[in-house]
């Protein structure tokens, strides 16, 4: 067994161990902490699978916004675990359920083990048409050109999720503000971090969006990092989240899908198809769309984490 195999196996065992912990742990907080650790380990797995774009996404989402979301929820729901303890199915049912789940796992494992290597792929097709998109990163080409509709619809999902979260507000708080209040004289380590980190984060995010055209990276990963920077400023109470009725916020939220849609419709006129880019302008247009998508993502994710507005704006 070579060293790399040993590494892969220990990584897989670790991932599974933390995942099992997440399921079996008695305490909800411990389970959530386990899940955050799990997210980190999984991004290592993605690097080992040579899927760096995915690893970046997993890292940005998993250890940033998802961690904040789940940990705060677990802390707020402290003590509710005991109340549902009576709803556990009996031991026999649990064993049966575990057995049935194992059947599913076994079926999938059998599929994995019989999968041909090399397997079916669209990589040659993507390589052949990559030049037409003027991009160097094939994943970005798939997301922004070959399967642009899915990406556009995914941005609509994000937009709808924001509406869904907002629509849970109490009627009186509509148009109001979510999340922690601003403190006037907040000092200490957290405020220090929240002042130092965002400039660095913004540079890194811009870098990731920009190189996304040719190297691993892209709008979502960059946007998620920007979102995390905004989150830390809000969590440190240096700034308050904007009121959801604010026009600028609304425009920032729809900018991504709207600009994507507009550029797509422009394709009718200048490139003979919806979501097509005219030759020679493909890359600039894609980067243009990505900038607005990054903005929308950077604004949407904190809105999703902060939850529905809980007080009217003053």
């Amino acid at each position, binding site marked *: 067994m070579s060293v790399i195999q040993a590494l892969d196996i220990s990584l897989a065992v670790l991932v599974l161990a933390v995942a099992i912990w997440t399921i079996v742990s008695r305490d909800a907080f411990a389970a959530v902490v386990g899940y955050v650790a799990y997210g*980190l380990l999984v*991004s290592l797995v993605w690097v080992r699978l040579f899927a760096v774009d995915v690893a970046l996404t997993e890292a940005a989402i998993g250890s940033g916004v998802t961690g904040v979301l789940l940990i705060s929820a677990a802390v707020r729901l402290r003590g509710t675990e005991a109340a549902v303890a009576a709803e556990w199915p009996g031991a026999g049912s649990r064993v049966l359920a575990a057995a049935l789940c194992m059947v599913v796992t076994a079926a999938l494992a059998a599929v994995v083990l019989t999968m041909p290597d090399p397997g079916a792929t669209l990589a040659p097709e993507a390589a052949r048409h990559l030049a037409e998109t003027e991009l160097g990163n094939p994943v970005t080409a798939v997301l922004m050109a070959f399967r642009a509709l899915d990406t556009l619809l995914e941005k609509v999902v994000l937009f709808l999720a924001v509406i869904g979260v907002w629509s849970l507000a109490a009627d009186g708080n509509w148009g109001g503000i979510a999340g922690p*209040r601003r403190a006037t004289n907040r000092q200490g380590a957290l405020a220090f971090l929240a002042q130092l980190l965002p400039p660095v984060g913004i540079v890194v995010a811009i870098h990731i969006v920009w190189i996304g055209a040719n190297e691993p990276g892209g709008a979502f990963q960059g946007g998620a990092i920007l979102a995390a920077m905004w989150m830390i400023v809000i969590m440190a109470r240096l700034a308050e989240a904007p009121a959801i009725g604010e026009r600028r916020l609304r425009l920032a939220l729809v900018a991504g899908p709207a600009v994507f849609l507009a550029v797509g419709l422009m394709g009718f006129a200048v490139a003979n198809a919806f979501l097509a880019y005219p030759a020679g302008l493909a890359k600039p247009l894609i980067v243009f769309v990505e900038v607005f998508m990054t903005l929308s993502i950077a604004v949407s994710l904190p809105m999703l984490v902060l939850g529905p507005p809980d007080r009217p704006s003053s």
Partner: protein
Amino acid sequence: MTEFLLGAAGFVLLTVAIGLIRVLGGPGNVDRTMAVQLLGTGGIAALLLVAAATGVRGAEDVALGLALLAAFASVAFVNSAAPEDDREAGRANE
């Protein structure tokens, strides 16, 4: 060299993970948070080592992203575990 780097990555990962698994069980949430912090640092180290060994392009950016967000879980924990701060801040605001 490659083998060495990979071995080091595995070693670092395993040591921090053993710490993690031991501490996840308790005693307190503070310890759990610390364990995740340690795993985060160890994970970044392992990632850098693996990237150097296998030459995966762009892996440093993943490490950079993880490093930027390294404090988030702990900050979220401390922030939401101390609700009295919230009230103080609210009062200070008025």
